[in-house]
């Protein structure tokens, strides 16, 4: 990453463990990255790898177990309740399920106005200015004005997701965590919503942390992609580079599973054996080793740090250099 770009978010050794009846669940385990203003970091990985928990911990919707989140020069993890409330104006979230993330008892305009009222942008009496703001937001996210008084149950998934985006945009934040914002929508709507999000990003200079399990979605949207496996980052690199030359065996398997929309092309899927191992009290070493076709005893001997194999491309694999050379 060039030095001219201004860093807006940096995450240092972030950990989030949950106490469960059968032990400590390592949802996010020592994650580090920085994100430049106006850029998009795509976070990919299969279900249960801690992507959503990472997003929520950054916003402090979950209290982190350890580590730091520096947002715009401030340590989010050390903020008091008051400071946190102020900070939330600048960092927002768009949720996955537009059916669950909107209060069914509020109209479209109430939902979008809610963050503005919570943050005290408008006095409760100043209905006119508030309504004007809400209408502007509705315009920006492509919601017809006639829907101001509609309830979410009267709208389809795409429109509901537009409400969710509108709610996140109402405060004009700098940074938005997008937690699988299109995976609950059908494909034709997905494209619309993704285009909308891209337009808004350009317009407002937003920074996105884009969480998804769908690689083809992040491909066109992200500057950087971070691949997670069981709470740990296994590979982080420039988006184009990742698709051209993935290094980590897990990333390779993941990329090989992207469907090719051409029946004549034979896909070379790399099948993975077994299932995701348990994130509760994980054993030391590479967590992917159990399923990795190249695993050796050394893989599970000790923790494997994320190492740079080339500038801006880090991989957590002891054979990273070997794989890298094999490709060259």
């Amino acid at each position, binding site marked *: 990453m060039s030095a001219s770009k201004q860093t807006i978010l940096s995450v240092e050794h972030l950990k989030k463990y949950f106490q469960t009846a059968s032990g400590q669940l390592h949802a996010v385990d020592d994650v580090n990255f920085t994100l430049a203003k106006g850029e998009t970091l795509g976070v990919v990985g299969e279900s249960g790898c801690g992507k959503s928990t990472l997003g*929520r911990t950054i*916003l402090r*919707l979950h209290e982190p177990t350890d580590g730091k989140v520096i947002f715009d020069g401030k340590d989010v993890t050390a903020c008091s309740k008051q400071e*946190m*409330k102020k900070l*939330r*104006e600048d960092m*927002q*979230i768009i*949720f*996955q*399920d537009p059916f*669950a*993330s*909107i*209060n*069914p*008892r509020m*109209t479209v305009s109430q939902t979008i106005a*809610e*963050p503005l009222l*919570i*943050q005290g942008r408008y006095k409760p009496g100043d209905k006119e200015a508030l309504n004007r703001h809400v209408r502007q937001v509705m315009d920006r996210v492509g919601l*017809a*004005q*006639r*829907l*101001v*008084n*509609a*309830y979410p*149950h*009267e709208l389809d998934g795409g429109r509901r997701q537009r409400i*969710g985006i509108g*709610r996140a945009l109402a*405060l004009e934040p700098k940074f938005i965590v997008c937690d699988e914002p299109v995976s609950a929508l059908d494909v034709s709507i997905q494209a619309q919503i993704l285009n909308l999000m891209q337009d808004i990003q350009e317009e407002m200079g937003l920074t996105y942390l884009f969480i998804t399990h769908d690689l083809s979605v992040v491909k066109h949207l992200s500057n950087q992609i971070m691949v997670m496996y069981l709470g740990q980052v296994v590979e982080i690199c420039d988006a184009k580079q990742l698709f051209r030359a993935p290094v980590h065996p897990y990333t390779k398997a993941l990329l090989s599973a992207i469907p090719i929309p051409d029946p004549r092309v034979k896909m070379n899927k790399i099948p993975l054996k077994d299932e995701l191992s348990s994130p509760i009290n994980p054993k030391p070493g590479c967590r992917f080793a159990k399923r990795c076709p190249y695993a050796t005893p050394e893989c599970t001997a000790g923790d494997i740090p994320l190492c740079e194999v080339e500038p801006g491309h880090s991989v957590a694999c002891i054979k990273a250099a070997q794989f890298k050379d094999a490709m060259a």
Partner: protein
Amino acid sequence: MKKAQNMPYQSRTLGAEAWYRFKKNKLALGALAIFIFLALMAITTIIIDLVTNNSFYDKYVISQDLLQRLQPPSKEHVLGMDEFGRDILLRIIWGTRYSLFMGAFAVLGASVLGGIIGAVAGYYNMMDTILMRIMDVFLAIPTTLLAVAIVAATGPSLVNVVLAIAISQTPTFARVIRAQVLTIKDQEFIEAARSAGASDARIIFRYIVPNALSPMIVQVTMGMASAILSIAGLSFIGMGIQAPMPEWGAMLSNARSYIRDAWHITVMPGAAIMITILILNIIGDGLRDALDPRMKN
């Protein structure tokens, strides 16, 4: 509605939506009409008593005419006369107030108390075990038995009966509300509110309470039916409203020794109790169907 350039979408509130669905259920609508009629009747009797300074009540509802005792239903006295020669229809009408209003107050008390306990237990994990185990202790004792015990300890009076029934119904309400709060508080829209910086109080009153309301309304209707039965039951065993007040359960209790000679003095108040409870249950069922969004069609 403002006539804007684009006509704003005319939206039915969820309440209006529920009423629209409730209306389609003719049985429940009929039951609601009867219930409103009963309530108006009860209010009318109270007004009559106030205006006539109880003289109508003293003359027709309480005063005895032993010559006419146990008369079967006739043209002048549609439901017949009771064991002291009083018109049963008038007594039933005058007795409506006890069942309806005491039942309403008892349920109001139970829903407020149970609502607070349930909401606290559901929202704050720490309080959950303590509060709900206490509620379980209350639930282990049959409702009526608990009410009898409370009245026996405090003495039979209108207020004590209402309190006893309110306390005995509180655990049921607490459970309903707690279950609601537990499911609602983990929904994503609560997290969305939190990510905008909303306080606990705002989340509870703007997000959780409105969404927990429908099962609460159903529980109120059903709870009222069982409160009315409890009032009648307490009066029947002499622990509720005392003679000569025309409470339905008390009337039933006094009449039962004459059941072989005059069936009507037992059946009529019994039927009044039964019909009232039945219509409340029908209304409750109708509301449940109308308020459940999954029943939408």
